[in-house]
């Protein structure tokens, strides 16, 4: 099927009757995912959003429950967001990262109701990448510009219209609302041509990386590999697979709420013990833990690499510490083809 670009705003408006619609919106000189008020706000020719759409399912600040303790007893009121959502225009790498987050919030012992409820109520409409950026390296971490993992619908841009690939039932009943017409053969050809032309220039070779990480924990490479890192959280807060969070109470005496905020393993406070001991005292241990978590520990536990190659950590790092160069140094070879 195909849908013309002109019809997109009206399609989004029709969706807004029974969905909360999120789409990329221009803000200053970058795009970010926001709940849109009108279909025309959506911007679809963008590289990738500054902050990943994971923030829709796992917001930076989220209230877990409100509580009030008075003579009559303790009143707890959990606040789980049950609204139906559509994320329109999500890139394949971000959709894949959501599949990785499912392993975290649904581990072998516990289920996180906040994330999982939203996850069930969200339809992901993907937008293929015709022009991957030079920081992208999704093909190196078994992803791709038109990868359909975890998407309900994939749109392929062929000029003034999109070829619509419906992938799941959720996608099927969503697309009913749009007035699509059938895709002609030329449309289909144009789509496969777009898919073929999209080439991802950034590459990094991660075969054998996990085995190397298995036994290079005490290697002195870690002493200098993160020397220039400032220890801020720009990379973790712009990473679609980062899931660490902090829990704090915000209340006046016994009336308030318990809130969950994004947290970063790059901060010393993250692992500081009450006794003052810190198992990861300096930037070296923290950076090593970040790389180990994504390319070894996560693989050990979930048999998947916790990186989708979106390149946001490369774009947002104030000192341009490039994860592809880090991985290449660990692999021991200078064979990093960085454009």
């Amino acid at each position: 099927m195909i849908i013309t670009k002109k019809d997109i705003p009206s399609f989004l408006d029709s969706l807004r009757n029974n969905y909360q619609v999120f789409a990329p919106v221009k803000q200053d000189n970058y795009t970010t995912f926001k709940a849109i008020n009108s279909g025309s706000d959506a911007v679809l020719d963008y590289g990738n959003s500054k902050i990943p759409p994971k923030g829709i399912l796992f917001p930076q600040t989220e209230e877990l429950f409100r509580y009030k303790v008075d003579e009559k007893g303790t009143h707890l009121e959990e606040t789980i967001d049950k609204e139906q959502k559509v994320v329109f225009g999500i890139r394949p790498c971000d959709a894949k990262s959501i599949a990785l987050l499912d392993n975290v919030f649904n581990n072998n012992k516990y289920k996180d109701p906040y994330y999982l409820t939203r996850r069930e109520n969200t339809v992901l409409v993907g937008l293929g990448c015709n022009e991957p950026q030079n920081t992208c390296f999704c093909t190196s971490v078994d992803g791709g510009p038109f990868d359909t993992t975890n998407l309900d619908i994939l749109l392929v841009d062929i000029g003034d219209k999109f070829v619509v690939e419906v992938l799941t039932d959720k996608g099927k009943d969503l697309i009913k609302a749009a007035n699509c017409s059938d895709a002609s053969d030329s449309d289909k050809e144009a789509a496969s041509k777009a898919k073929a032309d999209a080439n991802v220039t950034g590459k990094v070779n991660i075969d054998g990386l996990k085995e190397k990480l298995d036994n290079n924990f005490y290697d002195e490479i870690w002493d200098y590999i993160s020397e220039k890192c400032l220890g801020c959280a720009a990379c973790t807060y712009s990473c679609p697979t980062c899931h660490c969070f902090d829990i704090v109470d915000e209340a006046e005496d016994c009336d308030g709420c318990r809130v969950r905020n994004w947290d970063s393993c790059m901060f010393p406070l993250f692992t500081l013990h009450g006794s003052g001991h810190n198992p990861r005292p300096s930037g070296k241990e923290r950076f090593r833990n970040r790389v180990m978590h994504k390319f070894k520990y996560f693989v050990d536990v979930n048999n998947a690499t916790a990186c989708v190659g979106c390149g946001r950590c490369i774009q947002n790092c104030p000192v341009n510490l490039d994860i592809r160069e880090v991985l290449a140094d660990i692999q021991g070879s200078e064979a990093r083809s960085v454009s």
Partner: protein
Amino acid sequence: MLKNLLEYMGVDEGRVNFSWVSASEGGRFAELIGEVTEKVKQLGPNEGLIAKESGCCGCKE
């Protein structure tokens, strides 16, 4: 410098007041506090740097 910065950022004039008062100047201290309280009362309630919606945290969306 602190007063300049706070007023620059949007705190109403007159809400931030400084004065040197020695421990022995009891009378002047009382008078001063009276003046400042009066001035702040006229300014009315301080609705903060931005209009703060209800709710204790980000839970107002």
